[in-house]
């Protein structure tokens, strides 16, 4: 059981002062094995905070990040899964699933995690899964109205991944989960378990 925290688009301090208190109390150091961050932290203090939660931190560059040396994309292997990470402002049209699956093919990954729209989505197709953890702080977005703070926790176990999405709606944390199972490594496809 490997826990991966996926989050991004915090936009601290320009658009939000901090993560919601209810999220902060849930995110405790030592429980998570990897953190993948889509970008737009935007400052070093956020980087340092995430590092205290888990030393294995992966970040891709958002267009407002202070640190310009984060990579545009990142690929990592966790368990049986190849994960791809990219902020998403580079993929036009923004938030367009077909264009995102093109990036997924380009990076050749099972799970693609991108942000930019501040809207949580999880989409399964024959090539894999595309996840957007939304904005962890609920920051203003020109693309999405009424952003609820959200982040994603993935539980990777062999060829199976359970995606938990945590959303702060009207002051309460709501959780939802989606199951994905990789069929065979040869065909690179994922089927949804209901």
């Amino acid at each position, binding site marked *: 059981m490997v826990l991966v925290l996926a989050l991004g688009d915090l936009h601290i*301090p*320009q*658009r*939000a*002062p901090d993560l919601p208190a209810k999220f902060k109390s849930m995110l405790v150091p030592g429980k998570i094995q990897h953190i993948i961050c889509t970008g737009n932290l935007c400052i070093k203090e956020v980087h340092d905070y995430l590092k205290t939660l888990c030393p294995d931190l992966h970040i891709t560059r958002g*267009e*407002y990040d202070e640190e310009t040396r984060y990579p545009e994309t990142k690929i990592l292997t966790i368990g049986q899964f190849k994960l791809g990470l990219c902020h998403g*402002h*580079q993929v*036009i*049209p*923004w938030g*367009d699933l*077909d*264009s995102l*699956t*093109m990036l997924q*093919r*380009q990076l*050749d990954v099972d799970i693609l995690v991108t942000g930019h729209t501040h809207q949580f989505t999880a989409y399964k197709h*024959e*090539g894999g899964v595309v996840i957007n953890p939304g904005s962890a702080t609920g920051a*203003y977005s*020109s*693309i999405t*109205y009424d952003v609820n703070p959200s982040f994603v926790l993935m539980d990777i176990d062999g060829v199976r991944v359970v995606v938990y999405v945590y959303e702060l709606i009207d002051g309460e944390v709501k959780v939802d989960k989606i199951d994905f199972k990789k069929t065979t490594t040869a065909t*690179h496809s994922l089927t949804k378990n209901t």
Partner: protein
Amino acid sequence: MLHNDDPEEMLKIICTVRKHIMTGGPKRLPFTVPSLVFSALRLVRQLQGQDGDVIGGEVPATPKKIFQLLNQTIEALSTVPAPELALRLYLQCAEAASDCDLEPVAYEFFTQAFILYEEEIADSKAQFTAIHLIIGTLQRMNVFGIENRDTLTHKATGYSAKLLKKPDQCRAVYACSHLFWVDDQDGIKDGERVLLCLKRSLRIANAAQQMASATRGSSGPVTLFVEILNKYIYFFEKGNPQITSAAIQGLIELITTEMQSDSTTPDPASDAFFASTLRYIQFQKQKGGVMGEKYESVKV
């Protein structure tokens, strides 16, 4: 963070804070201006939901008035200077103005963004990101009439083709293809201009290959061609009549030939990308129905 439920009060707060911020000087402005801008944009959104104008007070709380303030506020960043940040903020305002149906205001924000791009952003990496932000924002605008939209898309495509590195040019130009095809109900769907962009990016990719051949002795990787193939596929599936299955077949054969050629540097990443693209086409064929029929004559 600034907050007040009453829009008029909120605007007063914003105006007051703004006066103080403006005296902050170049070291502080890059930190204070964005926060103020986003507070103001949130207020605009709040006002959008209300009917009619809020009248009264020295400064009426209307989106138009707020955008005027925003224009002046972002302008202050030129004293820092912070052109990349200012460009991003102008684009945010343009999108907000479009949502408020204020065509001239949105156009003005785009003008400011383009001026910054032209005059202040010289770094090629920064230009690449900036032009993508411009294209991405413009793609979503539905407030512009034909003339204004044409002027802006023409500018965007022109700048894309002038980026320094050929691969960057190629990618920016094919990104522009999306400016001419918007999936909404009333969105523009100009199949011909889409194809023109794709063909142009193909020419650039060819030129990049030849240049690599001439200067380094072997062609670069075929990644660009595979990216363009994926864009052809995208518009083919959206129903652009100008994109034919023959064109897709042609590209597949071109890439296959290039990859097998002795003078091409082998590259596992582009191999994998091409393989997953072909897998995708195969899957679409097997779907049957309308999609399967579209791909019938394509051989992978």
